[in-house]
């Protein structure tokens, strides 16, 4: 399990990566994170929700209502051009961060 403090700065990047593939909704994203990291990172619901609202406010993602399934209308998110640019920027930042941290790894 990873500490939520350590990964905080990259939640946005993780979410953007997933909605870059296809528009998605809250639980699907949370599940994808858990599955792809093989349970090493389980994102908290509040972390996920605050990231959604922040990203939407910054124009990185757009929310829309999906089709009704089992009487429920889900909020889906899709990435915007701003979001793509921000994602690329975060990837570059990560490459640099990784190099820096690696210098101090035993």
């Amino acid at each position, binding site marked *: 399990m990873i500490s939520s403090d350590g990964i905080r700065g990259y939640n946005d990047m993780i979410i953007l990566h997933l909605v870059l593939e296809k528009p998605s909704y809250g639980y699907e994203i949370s599940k994808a994170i858990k599955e792809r990291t093989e349970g090493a990172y389980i994102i908290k619901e509040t972390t996920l929700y605050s990231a959604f609202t922040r990203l939407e406010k910054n124009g990185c993602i757009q929310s829309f209502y999906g089709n009704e399934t089992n009487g429920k209308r889900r909020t889906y998110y899709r990435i915007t051009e701003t979001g793509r640019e*921000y994602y690329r920027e975060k990837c570059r930042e990560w490459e640099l961060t990784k190099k820096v941290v690696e210098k101090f790894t035993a």
Partner: protein
Amino acid sequence: METIINYIENLFRNYPDTPRVRKAREELLAIMEDKYHELKSQGKSENEAIGVVISEFGNMDEIALELGEDGNTSKENSGGYEEVYPMNTDQAKEFVSWKISFGYFIALGVALCILSPVTACILDAFSEAGILSSRFTDMAGGVALFCMVACGVAIFIIKGIADDGRVEKIKGKKISLDNAGRDYMEREKNAYMPKFGAFVAIGVGLCILSVVPGLIAEEVVGGTKLFWIEDIAGTLLFIMVACGVACFITAGTRKEAYDVVLGLKKIHEPKKKNKVMEMVSSIYWLFITFIYLAWSLLGSAWGISWVIWPLSGIIFGIVSVVVKAVTETGR
């Protein structure tokens, strides 16, 4: 599932029932519900499913910002999160050139306002020299003054409204520029800084020297038949101040543009509003205006009643200090 709904209801009990809070509650509940059903379908027991869902919920502090709480404490809890607005090189270049042209317009508007009395002064000189009748010059000078102020204010309003959307997007956010853009803008800024210094120096010089023509004219033509030249020389004061201020504004906005795209400065950073102060000040000024009008009209005291404005300005300063002290220690 009942337990989860109750859990959420309890957490949200102390929040006001606003659309944002409702949306957060619904969205969070939707994710939890999905997770709960999935766990159940994997053969987990009711208690196990609830346990997992609640343990993975997180911390309300994280969404306090979204719920519209005062950002003071919650900001720190969510890791000092700053709102970031990503920008690429082209967007940044475009922003800087827009900001520079915006600066020219504002400088023009301010210059028009400062220059507005110039026509009246010159015409006044002509009337004193006996070339034009004072009835004509007073009227024409007044009209010119108001026209110039109106043009200046119109520029502020039109530019302000036309560019509102652009500013709104990045208001209070820290701009995060890509690396190429950052290098480019740092070079641009460094290249501009000597010019910035020169503009500020010229601006200050013009403002200080602006009184000189009037003083010289007074010395040379004061008391002679050509005393009206003093008025003309006096208009140089307005012209020099207008040029000086235009220097400050154009240089200042250009430097600000670089600082904004480099993330050193945020545009229109929202100030923490003091609600009590806002209320007190609106009542205060309404009250002062009422006294001013009542005194002037009932007492026919238009000649002297203006003193109420500087006086109430000073009193307002004292009042605002007191109000701030009272409201902020109470927190």
